[in-house]
């Protein structure tokens, strides 16, 4: 109950506290640690690694991680609202499979749109389970992810649906709407900016923070807490299916278990947490998640360029996740 004491004691003498803007060192580390870590790693790589600071390499890094970034931006909303979405990997796979199937059987552009629509529809289902039925989001999405994965197998029949010969399908993943910028990178940027604005500038965004911060206080303030929470799953579903369609287009195929799907749900949660968004909800931001994704991407890139053994990368990633959470916990305990 040390937090109580802190509350009580910081009341009167604010002069000293004003020195650090009312915050102590763990709080500063929590709020700005990700920026320092990202910039530091970037500078170190730029100085020590000759091939790092090239347009080609940086574009590749962004392109390879765009799907993770897009999905993680959506997952940020769910986590700030106090939930988890473990079904993003399954939605990612199903969206790609549906896009490929429709592209082959109907029309490639309709396929891309249908794939993108998969996520919001399944997100509604997740939202109903969580807000309507009242199942904890961890369990609701764990269960729904199994069902979605099953659907993906049903759609593909367990085979790879090859769309690589369709120019308009693969354009989304490999082309450049703006010359010089790959579509994947453009999509990542658009999603990040749109969701960043949604969270920080809109009524809906404020309600998301309120629900995650104290759901009862939000309800007693007139917030439709169930709807707000359910919507985070719809948005997270949308970003997961956008990521899935993007990767399917890049690969020119859809399948039940595409590369990247297996670890996507936990990967997005890791990226969100590394960025400094609180796992307990109520605090965080999309830009944090973007930096979290990029930090992990840079580490990956460094291991590739320097040809280091990948198991050390996993151990380093684990250490970063643990320190991010630890800093958050210590800051909250003050």
């Amino acid at each position, binding site marked *: 109950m040390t937090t109580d*004491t802190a*509350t009580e004691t910081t*009341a*009167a003498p604010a002069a000293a506290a004003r020195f650090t803007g009312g915050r102590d060192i763990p709080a500063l580390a929590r709020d700005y640690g990700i920026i320092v870590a990202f910039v530091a790693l970037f500078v170190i790589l730029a100085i020590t690694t000759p091939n790092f600071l090239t347009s080609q390499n940086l574009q590749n890094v962004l392109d390879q991680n765009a799907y993770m970034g897009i999905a993680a931006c959506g997952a940020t909303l769910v986590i700030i609202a106090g939930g988890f979405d473990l079904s993003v990997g399954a939605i990612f796979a199903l969206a790609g499979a549906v896009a490929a199937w429709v592209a082959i059987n109907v029309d490639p552009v309709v396929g891309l749109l249908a794939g993108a629509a998969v996520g919001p529809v399944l997100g509604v289902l997740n939202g109903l389970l969580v807000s309507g039925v009242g199942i904890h989001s961890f369990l609701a999405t764990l269960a729904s992810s199994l069902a979605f994965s099953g659907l993906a197998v049903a759609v593909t029949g367990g085979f790879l649906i090859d769309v690589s010969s369709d120019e308009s399908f693969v354009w989304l993943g490999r082309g450049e709407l703006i010359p010089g910028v790959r579509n994947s990178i453009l999509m990542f940027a658009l999603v990040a900016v749109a969701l960043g604005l949604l969270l920080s500038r809109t009524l809906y965004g404020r*309600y998301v923070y309120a629900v995650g911060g104290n759901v009862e206080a939000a309800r007693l303030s007139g917030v439709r807490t169930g709807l707000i929470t359910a919507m985070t799953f719809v948005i997270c579903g949308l970003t997961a299916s956008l990521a899935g369609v993007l990767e399917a287009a890049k690969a020119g195929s859809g399948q039940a278990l595409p590369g990247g799907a297996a670890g996507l749900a936990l990967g997005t949660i890791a990226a969100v947490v590394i960025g400094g968004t609180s796992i307990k909800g109520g605090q965080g931001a999309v830009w944090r998640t973007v930096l979290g994704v990029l930090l992990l991407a840079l580490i990956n890139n460094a291991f590739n360029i320097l040809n280091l053994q990948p198991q050390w990368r996993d151990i380093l990633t684990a250490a970063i996740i643990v320190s991010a959470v630890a800093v958050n916990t210590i800051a909250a305990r003050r």
Partner: protein
Amino acid sequence: MTTAPPLVELRDVSKRYAGVQALAGIDMSILAGSIHGLVGENGAGKSTLGKIIGGAVVPSGGTILIDGERVSYRAPREALADGIAVIQQELALVPEMTVADNVFLGTESARGGAVSRPAMRRRWTELEQRAQFGLDPDTIVADLSVAQQQKVEILRAIARDARLIVMDEPTSSLAREETEQLHALVRGLRDDGITIVYVSHFLEEVLALCDTVTVFRNGELVETLDAAGTTVDRLVVGMLGHEMSTTFPAKQPPPAGAETVLSVRGISRAKVLEDISFEVRRGEIVGLAGLVGSGRSEVARAIFGADPVDSGTVEVDGAPLKLGSPRRAIAAGIALAPEDRKRQGLLLELPQRDNVALPNLATLSRLGFTDRRREDADTRALLAELGVTPPDPARPVRTLSGGNQQKVLFAKWLLRERKVLILDEPTRGVDVGAKRAIYELIVSLAERGLAVVVISSELEEVLGLAHRVLVMRRGRIATELTTDAMSPDAVMHAAFGIDAIESEIAK
């Protein structure tokens, strides 16, 4: 008693939190076998000192002697080994477990890793013979009242052979009757040789119960007094550093023809509320009194739509309100400042601005986009008007004192025009100086034409503020008291149902 060596001796003890001095240069002694009260405003350091003695807070400087021997506890467990137990304001029990399991938690009798039920049963019988609290060991703790849960905590301390028990605000959520039971219990503990450190806001209680009282102000020890020769006024002077009037602002009766704003008819909810009907007029302050658990807060929550109801209607300015949704109640002009501001009222980690703006965002935003600058300007003006210090919209609510947090809770509902304001325990955990400011605020809001309902466990507060008092008992409105009939005695009689018992005896 005066010749005995002190059980606890503090020398120049201090504590700093992130640049804030919580305690400075504390020298004091606690005599074995006494009840020692610690009083002071919020932030004065009394709770911190209790936690230091109990090992929950590590001091930044100074020396602590227990039985004349120097100790430096780093965790409550280490203090417990020396027989020092702390009972926090927020009880630390496992609600799903039984009374006995909670009492022996962490000290279970085990054989080869398996809990030995017969051995625990024997220990319980021994313990109950000593303490005689009359608790059923097999009851699930969640089913007990707060007062009984407190007994479980005390029993846990006794089971660990505590010589010193620190109690932090033990009566803040107890009804008067329960408070008296607790006091009898505490006296019994003292007579058995257990020393008690009693931290409390309630000065009368402290004087009635304690042998010695130490007064704190701004982290410093003001004086240690013999409780027998001291008055409440003397303590208040010590706490505030100046004399202050504890009277309430003058009541301004609502104009004779003031129209009814809130009309509640026949609200019932199985096992909770029964046929609740009352009206509140413009400019009127109606008090809801009664014991804890009598249904006061439940009335507020039912009107506000926070809890479901089985039957009954509510009208605001003659227009019927469909119950069951806080959102609709707010739209109809009703506002509720709930009793537990930390759990139900505030987003502690978010800035004051976000808290104040939350129920008003629809009118503060345009086309779904928020306008921080406007929110800042409106919030700053309102916070300054309410006397929140500092009126900084960006400051997280968690860093504010209890009184300021309460004002932020009010501010949520004052940014826009409301018709009905329901205040549940408006001064809980608020220090003496801030109480008066909150009373003045409530009176001025009524004068502005709001219909106000005040719920409070502090009798003086209801009587001092309200024009009319409704006394609740077991989910019903037992009686309504107006001007002349409003006395502490009348309220207590109605709350305990003493008249009803007497008339039954008369039959």
